[in-house]
């Protein structure tokens, strides 16, 4: 029941909120996030005592379409991330409110529920359903609350592109299913059926999955929807996209694809690794010449996700665990960095880095917190980013030291672009006026900084959680 409640609670809450304008939606959304954190924690504690939370309900028995949930280690880690995001993101509105907030947060909760479903289900068809379902709320959120020119065009592109990409995943799922004798989309059956296939077939199945995930993550050259969507979406929508939604793709890769087609990855998966590595370098290069903070964060996010994808495809313990850990860490940092963006945008009125400077003089606390987040983003040891990236590079070197080296160039380029951005905005003589942080802002930034450092120094609990199924 715990597993089911994680899925149902946000969806129901979202539907209620959508239809009740009188609710104080922001607080409610955050409160539900908090409840979800508690539920996940309860499941975590139970798992420590060896109790696994499961739920099973046949929806269409003949096809094998079931609502089956299982809170395994990686699922719990991702569920925790989703819950934390649901809790934090409403707070990052920082006193500003949207038009008809009940709709905004209602959609948000529906989306959270859909993503939660994708993380905890063990039914491939249900995973696919949730994967697609999460698109609908964000579509409306961007369309109604987004800003900028050509909004419709950009949203449509985003929607159709990711929808189109997922079709290849469906093909792969259906193909695996067609080789089975029973009608089942359950994970155990899928893995068994896929493992029995020849490595060439597995290679094709990998291709289908990877194209779908590559669009969502995104990986070069399928990323062209991403910068403009991040840019035009309302900032909280961007946080949802970067922190949680794209994790569905990396999670799908780690949770579904790796166990299903190990042979295919080994023998026919090189191209996917190459694409991921190219993606890391490409995005880093793009980030170097960005003039605006939001796009800088967007591209750095592509680089990180490329690293996750490459490391996961090594299909080693370090790569996989590092991948999950980095997903969590990156989700946290994405929320925090976009919160930094919001704070700057609210005060300065724009995010053009060249037109700011010396904020450290006007507001040293903010600069200090931002600096630690930047360090987390460039994977400095004793921040959460390091644990993830180190394990990923370690995993990637199992495939090839050369590729690990090329992907590792992002260590250098990342330092260059993040520090350049930091320097332009925070340092220098000309001091842009910058009001002190409100309590909400301080708590969000301070809280994420503390989390980032704790996860860097003492990652053991999370690492153990992730490895629970290993």
């Amino acid at each position: 029941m715990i597993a089911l409640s994680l899925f149902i609670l946000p969806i129901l809450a979202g539907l209620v909120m959508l239809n009740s304008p009188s609710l104080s939606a922001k607080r409610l959304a955050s409160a539900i996030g908090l409840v979800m954190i508690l539920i996940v924690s309860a499941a975590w504690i139970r798992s420590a005592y060896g109790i696994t939370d499961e739920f099973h309900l046949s929806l269409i028995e003949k096809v094998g379409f079931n609502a089956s949930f299982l809170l395994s280690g990686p699922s719990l880690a991702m569920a925790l991330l989703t819950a934390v995001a649901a809790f934090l993101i409403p707070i990052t509105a920082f006193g500003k409110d949207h038009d008809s907030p009940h709709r905004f947060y209602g959609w948000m909760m529906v989306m959270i529920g859909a993503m939660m479903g994708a993380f905890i289900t063990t039914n491939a068809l249900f995973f696919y359903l949730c994967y697609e379902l999460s698109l609908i709320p964000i579509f409306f959120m961007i369309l109604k609350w987004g800003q900028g020119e050509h909004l419709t065009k950009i949203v449509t592109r985003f929607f159709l592109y990711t929808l189109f990409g997922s079709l290849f995943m469906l093909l792969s799922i259906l193909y695996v299913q067609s080789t089975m004798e029973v009608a089942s989309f359950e994970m155990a059956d899928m893995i068994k059926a896929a493992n029995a296939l020849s490595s060439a077939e597995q290679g094709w199945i990998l291709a289908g999955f990877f194209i779908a995930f590559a669009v969502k993550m995104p990986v070069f050259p399928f990323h062209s929807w991403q910068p403009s969507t991040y840019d035009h979406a309302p900032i909280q929508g961007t946080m949802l996209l970067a922190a949680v939604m794209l994790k569905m793709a990396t999670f799908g890769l780690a949770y579904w694809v790796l166990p299903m087609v190990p042979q295919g990855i080994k023998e026919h998966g090189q191209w996917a690794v190459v694409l991921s590595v190219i993606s890391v370098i490409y995005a880093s290069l793009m980030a170097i010449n960005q003039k605006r903070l939001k796009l800088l964060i967007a591209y750095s996010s592509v680089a990180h996700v490329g690293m996750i994808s490459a490391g996961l495809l090594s299909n080693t313990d370090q790569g996989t665990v590092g991948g999950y850990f980095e997903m969590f860490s990156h989700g946290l940092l994405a929320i925090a960095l976009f919160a930094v963006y919001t704070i700057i945008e609210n005060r300065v009125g724009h995010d053009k880095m060249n037109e700011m400077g010396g904020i450290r003089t006007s507001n040293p606390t903010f600069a200090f917190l931002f600096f630690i987040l930047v360090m987390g983003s460039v994977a400095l040891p004793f921040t959460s980013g390091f644990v993830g990236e180190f394990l990923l590079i370690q995993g990637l070197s199992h495939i090839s030291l050369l590729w690990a080296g090329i992907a590792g160039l992002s260590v250098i380029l990342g330092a260059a672009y993040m520090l350049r951005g930091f320097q332009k905005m925070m340092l220098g003589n000309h001091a842009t006026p910058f009001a002190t942080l409100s309590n909400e802002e301080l708590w969000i930034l301070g809280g994420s900084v503390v989390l980032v450092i704790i996860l860097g120094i003492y990652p053991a609990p999370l690492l153990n959680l992730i490895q629970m199924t290993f």
Partner: protein
Amino acid sequence: MEKLVSLIPLFPLIGFLFITFFGKNLSKNAAGALATAMIGISFILAIPVFTTQLHGAHPVMVKVLDWIHVGSFHVDISFVVDPLSTLYVLFITGVGSLIHLYSIGYMHEDEGFHRFMSYLNLFVFFMLLLVLGDNLLLLFVGWEGVGVCSFMLIGFWYKDHANNDAAKKAFVMNRVGDLGLLLGMALIFIQCGSLRYEDLFINGSGIASLGKYTTLAAILLFIGAMGKSAQFPLHTWLPDAMAGPTPVSALIHAATMVTAGIYLVARCSDLYAMSEIASSVVTWAGVITAILGASIALTQNDIKKVLAYSTVSQLGFMFAALGMGAYTIAVFHVVTHAFFKALLFLGSGSVIHAMGGEQDIRRMGGLKGHMKTTYWTFLVGTIAIAGIFPFAGFFSKDQILAHALENNMPVFILLMLAAAGTAFYMFRMFYLTFHGDFRGTHEQEHHLHESPAVMTLPLIVLAIASTVGGFMGFPHAIGESIHFHHWLDHFLDGTVVLAHSHMSAMTEILLALVAMAIAGGMIYYAYTTYIVKNTMALEDDEIPAGIHRLLWRKYAFDELYENIFRRPVDQLSHGIQHWIEDKALLMMVDGTGSAAKGLGHWMKGWHNGQILTYLIAIVVGLIAILYFI
């Protein structure tokens, strides 16, 4: 007793946290005293730990916290207590506390005083992690940590973008090295299954399972050392790092952080001893750097830049020694260098302090009369680095040269040249700064004064250390005959691979005499040039084209890197943005959309409402179906 070791890094961390969060309530003196005391306590704690090692205790691992456990990968936050680490801890905390003390005086007028002290504490914390960690990954933590502290301290005066650029350059170039180290660690883990020194070097030799990857691993680790220790071709950040306050230059960019590379190679001496190729790479990188640094230092006029290039050059000496297998001698030189270079930097800080921020030695002169303590201590440092008996630098440098003489003639000749250059440029700087007539403004002359006691006290202590510090490494050949053994060699035995020397005492003494004669000659040459003939260093625009100008322009490495790395990367980035990101990829995506739309338009043409067309379609379709059935 060894359990104390986990407290050693704790105190600097407490100092950092306390000053950062509660520093506002402290006066400057209190904050400075607190920061110094924290390092001091660490130093006091380090002494008993060191003594146990001195008395031959076995290396001990002290685990603090579980860190990363993934599959077969196990790394903890855990400290190693052995001769090498305790030696490093001792001189880091020792020199560190002196420099903290000095900073109280030097930074007193600065509005960012508290910030400065807290950063220094954080730096020492990471530096201690670096040397105390019992595995390569924890070393890497300290490695990157000191890099960040270095970034924050170089760009301490962040209002000037020149400082920030220097800081960023240091960090990014260090990261080039860090990538090498990271890959080296990955390779070692894949081949050997562990990153702990205990498994790799101490208990048996896990490192042997590297097999054919030995050389690659050694070189990758050395790339890391190159970045941190400013070896050619990653040396250009160190002189720029002088943009930071002078105590920072003394602590980070002379005494401790930049010697982390030597620590790494010495720590992995088992690995380097196995690979001849990697060792010769290390040697030659060191030799080239030694020559490069010394030759550039001949023409620099900024007092801190001269010292910076001198540091680069001395680090080169150390690496040359490492490459030739003289690991203990390199560590020896690290320690003596820490004494005299910290002394020289602090002395130059005292001069800069007196000159009101002026750093150009062409605007100084005649300071001897105004600041006695600084003058004498600076003289001690200068003699020590020039390599005159019995000052500290003599012993360590002489043994590096002796080792080169024994193993590799070309290396010996080049290092001799660099040593001769060192004697010349140091005394050139010394004479120009302290002798002759004062060449600054009247205002400055009026302002000249000796620095306060908090600043001169560290100078005196370091001067003493620079004088007697060399005796801990008395040469074997001579030492044996007078029953004064190479103490350091014995101490480090078992942790670091020892070099074997078969040099006779006679050769050793002869070499020492020759080296000293050359140094003396260079000092005399500097004396005649700058005191007797009273020649002046040339103004920037007077410097003649050719070799002199090339040296003055630091072999134009900055321009070279600008042209072959930074600018192409920027252009590539812009090119990609323009052609691929904004054009090709969008065309691909929107093209798919347009194609679908175009297909629709084309098909729409068929639906023209004419029954004839529909009928033809039906008939053709029917026929096609019948045909294919």
